[in-house]
Structures are given as C-alpha cells and as structure tokens.
C-alpha cells in the first residue's frame, strides 16, 4: 500500500511552485487535482513507456529503475507511470522482450523498487496493467484475442481465439496484478486499452467477431473491459483511483473498426464501471493513418479530448503530439483536458516539466518525433533516443557529464549535429571549445532534411537547442571559416574533432558531367530548379527527402536505389508514408538498380535481374554521400588527439551523429 501523505506532498510542492516563475506562466499545469483519496500536486503525467530494459523473464533491472527515477524527478510532483506490465505466466500478454511482469508475487520487490524511487522523487506512482492481446506473444508463435482475425502486419503473431475460461482467467490476472501493484506501493492502477492491446481487441468491431456475451453489439464488446475494471475495483477498494487508456478514434475504417461514436460508448461504459480518469488515445498499430509522426501538427488530437469531455465527467488526460507546456496549459485552462500526459517528450527530456516550472523554456530539448525509440522497441532492442544520448545509460556514471581532469583547447571542425553535441559536452566538462563552420548556417545535413514538406522543420529544433546550450556553456563559434592545416597550426589546439560531415558526390558514368545532373542539397535549398521528370539517383534518406520535396512540387520522381527498397535507413513509421506520398504523385522506384549512363532527356538504368531500362529524365538529382575527410591526415600530423565523428566517419542518420558527438565529448 502507498504510504504517501498526500496533504503533505501537495503542500510541499505548492510551496515550491509559488517560488517558481513557471507557476505564473502556466497556472493550470501546476494546480493540484484530487482523484479519490489521491491528491496530485500538479497536472503532469509521464505516460507508460515500454523500454525493453528489464530481464526477459520479467524482472525489473537497475537500468529501468534509474531511467524511471530521472523521469520521476523531472515531474516535480506529477504522476509517473511505469511501463505496462504483463500478467500471465505463459507470456501471451507480453508484447516486448524486456517487458516487466506482474504474474507472480516474486515480481513485487522489483515493482516496489520502481514505486519507491518515484516516491523518493516526490512524484505519484502509477502502475499500468497491459495485456498486449494481438500485439502479444512476443516470445511465442501465437498471440490471443477475442477472435482469430488475421493480422495486417507481418511482425505480429497469428491470433488464437480465447475461450470463455481463458477470458475469465485473464480478468482474474488483472485483479491479481492490481493487488501486487498495491502491495508494491503504487498510488494509482492504470489499465491499458489502446492501440491493439487486448482490451481494445474486445472493444473493436474489427477484431471482435464473437457471438457469445463478449461479442456482438458495442455494449457486449465492452463486457470484457467492464469485468476487468470491476475485478480491479474489488481488489483496490474505494480509495485508489483506477485510470484507463481508451481509443477515442480507432482510425480503422478500412478494416471495419469502431466508429468514433462507438468509441464514446466505451468511454461511458468505462466510467459507469468505475474508472476515475480516462486517457484519450487514437489510432492502432494496424491503422493506416498517421498519429504521432511529424506530419500531424502538435495539438491536433485535442479535438478527441473535447469529444470525450462531452460524454464523461471523470477527468481526462491526453498525450499524442502534445509537446509544449504552453499548449497543454491552455488546453487545461479551456477545460479540454485535466491532465497533460507525455511519453516521448519526457524520453527526450526527462526534466521537461521541471524546466517549464523554472521558466527555462529555452532549455527544453524537444522530441523530434523521429520514432527511433519505437523502432528499437519493435526490433526487440532497448530503447534509445535520437536527441537524448543518455537514455538507457542513466544508471551508468561513465555516461554522465563530469568535469575534465585537465582543461584542453578543443577545435571542433563542423557545425552539424555531431560537432555541436561534441562541443556542448566538451565545454560543459570545462574545456575551451572553438567550433568552426564553413557555412553561415549550423546544422549540416539537418539543414537539408528540415526542408522536407511534412513537418520536417521540427527537426531543426534540435540544432537550435544545441546552439543555445553551446552558447551557455561558453563554446566560441567561428562561422564562415574553412579550417585548413594552417589554421590548426596557428591555433595549436590540444584536440581536433573532425565533424565535417559528408559531401554529395556524382559517381562517374557516361554523361554524369552533363549540366542537368545536379546535387540534392542544391535542389532542397532552391539553388537549382528541376524539370518535371526527375531521376533521383540514390535512395537513402537524403534521396527520399529530396524526392518527397519534389513530389509535393508536382514533379514526377523516379528513385534509383541499389538497396532492396528506398529509405532502408529511414524510420519504419515514416518511410511507408513518404513512399505512399511519392507514388501518389506518379513517383516510381527501381530497386537493386543503378544508373548506367545519362543522356539528354533520359537515363539508362541497370535494373534488377540485369535488365536495362530507359527512364525519361529532364533532371538527374544525385543524393549519394561520402565522408568529407580532407583534413584528417593533416590534423593527425599537427595534433596529438584527433577524433573523427558523425558522417565524416561514416554517413549515417541524425541519431548516430548526436550519439557520436556525445561519446567523444565525454572522452576528450
């Protein structure tokens, strides 16, 4: 049982809030709220985040404890939810290899460690119960659901229909897990009923085809959820709040899913069954629609919270692209939501609420919605974050930024993400850092990438953040300065970090010197115009972004890639959408292919199976890169410590650059 004295906790935090500018800037965020007997000091909630940090047999690890402690501390009194736990010994409800378990009392000590650190940091502990249903059975060759409706996604397991006995057992398992949650000291019990997990499978007309009392009309489809809520209530009693996450809009029309109106029936039924707060979600993993990618404007889904408010009286919370405190404060002020939830924003910056409270908005490192964290999860790997290299290393002292033993003069060559991140860490450790950039703009490849048409400008936010933090840490910027061996000789740095990035190169084939062969950055930055028929030579991320940009301008783009598909280096939650958009404007792809020769008006493509294809082209845009390493050898002769990082080492993605920069920044 939780031993938190809620009155004391609230008054302690409220006293503290009063002294902070954020409580005036965001008066609604830092107002307390009482749900049943639990008094919560503010309106901020860290949403459940599966992280694959725990043992494969479900025990909580030091890594997870340290990760959660950081988030709990950053919440300055808010609600900290732990990852959804699975509740059955067979692992049918287990969706992630490193998911924590709660199917036996032997898991209580680990779960208690998480509750304890949350409480030690003055936050409210929430445990989420999550049977993954159609997304489950990660280590089995099947999963379970109300009906055996075949999966749309290959990665998911074939579904076995649950018998009535299995349904009753799983309801009991929810209640047992809730009891263990209470014994571990949690203040709130949350039930996950979203995105394709078991409760949502019962609720949805797409996946529930049962003809017994658990299927049929929407009221019957709610029966499983209602019985779970009632069973949990029986265990937790009247003082402990039960939260639930429910879809307000499944976005499964193509598969015959629930209508938005039916979703609201599920809300009303959940309220009637006794839940105390509903977290408004949208979309399913099997849905064809964007939900949390950058093409969805921030705050877009608030209309679903508004709808929910018209149907239920219990408090409403919402995450989903609600990244900014000003947006959340306004939504609470307008009565659209009661609690602001965040998942990815607090992976990216665990201190986000604290920084908002302290009025340090310029210090918030915003999530760029790249979904690397999710992609890792689905590949059975522990999560990492593109912009926060510390994720998963919170437990490890070696990853912390600590003062350097000896102050050095560091010359960072290149102001892309790798160079900026390295400069920041090195300066924070006390080194004298000079960053040289040959252009008049920072960001390297991000400058081009942020020209993409579907919200990609958000990517540039991390460059602006790094620049602000570098300024604060005392990094000296030398813009429009090309570093030569002579400059190294004159400046005599102790350390040179080569972060010069990669350059676009035109491979030599007959016709590659023709004037209609141009480079992708010149197109993206508007220095050259293309004709209507464009061949994009190279299909990695740079080529896909440039193709997308041209497609939105009405150009017909043909991507030529040597890989088995375009964008092998682009996050899975983006690439299929990008390719859909490119093909909708008449775009085409040749995979396992290369350009053999270029002529006026056409390109000869050497395609798969060794076939040659003439492709009409007014312009050929080259998007292939190779490391820019001119300076490496000279620097090694002139300086005792030289590091090569980011694309200058091997052209890769943004997160590789940032992580390289961080690691080398620690090592100098």
């Amino acid at each position, binding site marked *: 049982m939780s031993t938190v004295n809620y009155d004391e906790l609230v008054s302690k935090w409220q006293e503290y809030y009063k002294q902070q500018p954020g409580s005036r800037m965001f008066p609604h965020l830092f107002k307390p709220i009482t749900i049943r007997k639990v008094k919560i000091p503010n309106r901020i909630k860290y949403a459940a985040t599966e992280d694959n940090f725990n043992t494969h047999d479900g025990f909580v690890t030091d890594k997870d404890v340290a990760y959660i402690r950081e988030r709990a501390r950053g919440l300055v009194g808010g609600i900290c939810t732990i990852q959804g736990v699975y509740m059955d010994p067979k692992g049918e409800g287990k969706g992630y290899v490193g998911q924590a378990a709660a199917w036996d009392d032997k898991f209580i000590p680990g779960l208690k460690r998480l509750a304890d650190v949350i409480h030690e940091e003055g936050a409210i502990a929430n445990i989420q119960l999550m049977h993954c249903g159609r997304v489950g059975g990660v280590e089995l*060759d099947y999963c379970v659901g109300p009906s055996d409706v075949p999966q749309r996604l*290959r990665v998911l397991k074939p579904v076995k229909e649950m018998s009535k006995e299995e349904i009753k057992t799983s309801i009991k398992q929810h209640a047992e897990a809730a009891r263990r949650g209470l014994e571990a000291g949690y203040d709130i019990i949350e039930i996950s009923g979203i995105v394709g997990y078991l409760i949502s499978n019962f609720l949805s007309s797409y996946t529930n085809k049962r003809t017994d009392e658990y299927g049929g009309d929407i009221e019957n489809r709610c029966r499983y959820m209602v019985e779970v809520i009632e069973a949990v209530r029986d265990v937790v009693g009247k003082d402990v709040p039960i939260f639930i996450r429910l879809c307000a809009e499944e976005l499964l029309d193509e598969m015959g899913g629930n209508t938005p109106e039916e979703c609201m029936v599920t809300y009303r039924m959940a309220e009637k069954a006794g839940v105390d707060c509903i977290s408004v979600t949208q979309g399913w993993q099997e849905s064809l629609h964007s939900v949390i990618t950058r093409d969805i404007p921030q705050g877009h889904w608030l209309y679903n919270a508004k709808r929910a408010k018209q149907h239920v009286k219990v408090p409403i919370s919402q995450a989903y692209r609600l990244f900014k405190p000003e947006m959340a404060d306004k939504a609470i002020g307008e009565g659209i939501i009661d609690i602001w939830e965040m998942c990815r924003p607090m992976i990216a910056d665990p201190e986000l609420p604290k920084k908002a409270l302290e009025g340090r908005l310029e210090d918030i490192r915003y999530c760029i919605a790249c979904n690397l964290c999710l992609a890792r999860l689905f590949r059975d790997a522990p999560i990492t974050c593109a912009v926060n290299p510390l994720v998963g290393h919170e437990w490890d002292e070696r990853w912390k930024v600590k003062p350097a033993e000896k102050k050095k003069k560091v010359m960072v060559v290149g102001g892309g993400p790798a160079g900026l991140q390295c400069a920041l860490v090195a300066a924070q450790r006390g080194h004298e850092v000079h960053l040289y950039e040959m252009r008049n703009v920072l960001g390297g490849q991000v400058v081009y990438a942020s020209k993409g048409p579907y919200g990609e400008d958000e990517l540039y936010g991390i460059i602006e953040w790094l620049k602000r933090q570098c300024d604060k840490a005392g990094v000296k910027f030398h813009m429009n300065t090309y570093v030569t061996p002579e400059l190294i000789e004159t400046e005599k740095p102790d350390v040179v970090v080569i972060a010069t990035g990669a350059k676009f190169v035109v491979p030599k084939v007959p016709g590659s010197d023709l004037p209609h062969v141009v480079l992708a950055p010149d197109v993206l930055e508007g220095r050259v115009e293309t004709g209507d028929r464009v061949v994009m030579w190279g299909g990695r991320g740079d080529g896909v972004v440039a193709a997308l940009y041209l497609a939105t301008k009405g150009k017909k783009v043909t991507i030529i890639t*040597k*890989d*088995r598909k375009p964008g092998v280096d682009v996050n899975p939650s983006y690439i299929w959408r990008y390719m859909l958009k490119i093909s909708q404007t008449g775009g*085409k792809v040749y995979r*396992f292919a290369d350009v053999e020769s270029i002529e006026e008006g056409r390109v000869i493509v050497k*395609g*798969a*199976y*060794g*076939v040659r*294809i*003439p*492709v*009409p082209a007014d312009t050929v845009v080259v998007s292939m890169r190779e490391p820019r390493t001119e300076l490496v050898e000279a620097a090694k002769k002139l300086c005792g410590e030289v590091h090569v990082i980011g694309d200058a080492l091997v052209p890769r993605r943004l997160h590789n650059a940032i992580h390289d920069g961080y690691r080398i920044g620690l090592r100098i």
Partner: protein
Amino acid sequence: MSFNPEEELRRLLARFDLLAGIVRATWYEWRQAALEFARPGTKPLDLVLRAWEIVGHDTAMSYFMALRKNSPTFLEDLANLIVMSSRAMGEDAFAYKGENPNEVFVQWNECPWPEFARRYKADMEEDVLGCDRWFQTVIEDVNKHFGTKIKLETLKAIPRGDPICLRRLTMEG
C-alpha cells in the same frame, strides 16, 4: 499504337518481382507442409538439404547445354552461369577472376532469401547450408559430366551476418 517502353518494362519487372517473391514464399510453405507430414524426428535441415540437392541436379542439367569442355574459359563460364541463375532469382551477383589462373570468385551483394527465411522462421544456417548443397550438387554433376576437377568453397554468407556471400571456384589441371 503508341506505348511507353519504360512502363512496359516496369510492369514486366514488377510482375517478375512478384513471381520471384511467390517462388520464395512457396519454397518455405512447402517446407512447412513437408515437415508437418514428415516422419517423426525428421530434422528440417535434412529435408532442406535433400530439396536443394534435387534442385542442384536440375540446375546442372541446364548448365550442360551451355558449357563447352574445351572452352579456355570453362571455369568463368560456369561462374557466369551461377551468376545468371542467381540474378534470375533476384540476387545481385557477379563473377571475377582470382589472383591464381584457375580461380574464379562469385560475389553476392544482395540476397532476398534470408528475409524469407526469417519471415517463415527457418534457421539462417539452413539458408547457408542449403545454398551450399545446391552449388556443390551442381559442381559434382558438372565434374561427372565433363570429367573436370572443380571445387567450390563458401567463404562468406549473408545469412551468417557477413555483408556479402562469397564463393571460390577452383579447377585442377
């Protein structure tokens, strides 16, 4: 009647791609069915090796017509036939001469088979050994048919985590 030659080729390629995908999927689906009906204790690897052996005899027969015993480039001709078979199955392969006169390498940069093996939960090593059995059967039959002494070694394999597949062909005498 006017037509767009690129479109015609594209359509053909797309259908060919689809067919190649169906062939690969069918391979694993038959494997699954065969295992379900197999004698208890049958090891998937034994079944798969036997299947590739049957394929190998068939492939060798198609090579007999294309090879000439007295060709000065016999080994290269054989390597190029292997390249051709591989490309026809959607693999990206090429042959090159080694440093020794009687040595030719075949290199595969891309291969769609491991992706299908993963999809159908077949062991990756099955993929390596299966391919190997196919080629070894071809070489054995070619040796018997032409009286040659050719050897094939698998040096690298994508399903084992190598970036390429690499096979070395050497001929005695």
